[in-house]
């Protein structure tokens, strides 16, 4: 029985399958509606996105920014990124995280999380389907393979 204490954020592992020795560990930053699509993805495919209980081997941390980043919350998102250990990557999920989306004209919306963090993959949609999330994570996996696995 785990000790009762303050709950930590839920992390999900993208199943790398046989071909990889490492997995993507996704920390979802659920800011708005796109967070619901992330929840739908984890609920629909519990085999693809498994809760990360810390027992998996090598992992690459992925910060999945889902939803509108407001100027007020931007320091918190930055703090989350800085708290992640290397190797790490950012997935921008949805129009708001890509560019501010339909709220680009607002007085308090950051026009895209790439104003704060280095984004590796942008997933378009408003909101993107759960299938788009998995496809985006797979694309990120491909791009990271060259960075994480030494080319022989």
């Amino acid at each position, binding site marked *: 029985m785990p000790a009762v204490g303050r709950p930590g954020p839920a992390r999900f592992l993208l199943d790398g399958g046989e071909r990889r020795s490492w997995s993507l560990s996704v920390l979802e930053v659920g800011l708005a509606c796109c967070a619901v699509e992330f929840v739908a993805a984890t609920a629909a495919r519990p085999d693809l996105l498994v809760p990360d209980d810390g027992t998996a081997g090598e992992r690459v941390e992925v910060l999945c920014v889902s939803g509108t980043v*407001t100027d*007020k919350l931007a320091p918190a998102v930055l703090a989350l990124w800085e708290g992640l250990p290397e190797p790490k990557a950012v997935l921008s999920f949805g129009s708001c995280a890509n560019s501010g989306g339909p709220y680009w004209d607002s007085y308090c919306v950051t026009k895209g999380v790439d104003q704060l963090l280095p984004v590796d993959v942008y997933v378009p949609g408003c909101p993107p389907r759960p299938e788009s999330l998995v496809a985006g994570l797979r694309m990120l996996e491909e791009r990271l393979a060259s960075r994480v696995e030494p080319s022989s």
Partner: protein
Amino acid sequence: MTWADQVATAYDAGLAVPVTLEEGFGPLAVDVPATHWREAVTLARDVLGCGFFDWLSAVDELDEGFRVLCHLARRPQDGVPLAHLLVRTLLPRDAPVLPSVRDVFAGAGWHERETHEMFGIDFTADGAVLALEPLLLPEEFEGHPLRKDFVLASRVARPWPGAKEPGESDATVGRARRRPRPPGVPDEGTWRP
């Protein structure tokens, strides 16, 4: 006795100043003078049984000033149906000050913080203006965004893709000609409040 009658009777008896009722499109609204704001909200809670605080916000009514609204509800129980009440008051534009009702309804605290930062309305407690921390806006933010003279600068600054006529491109469009704007977006000259 209808809900409107109950409200009218309660305010006639309980408040020292006359109020006006409005039954229109939305919930029943009672307009009270700002001097008796706290008494009006307390009366709604204690006499009329409106124990549920929904929201408190404001509307920029331009020349009339700022209208502060408080939406309350009487919960349905024992055959007594759900009833809504909108308690409203008008504040002058140059000096928008209102006593806080955070001790009447604890939830009003956050709503007053938001109304303060969005409209610039000051809330007082015991005669002193409360120093309310911004709720939704970052510390460095200047201005009060929900006032109608606060222009959404992004749409003014960015060129509208629809400004071109059919058969025009960015290269050929005349710079001297006044570019059309979509409805609601002010002209470039007016974007400083």
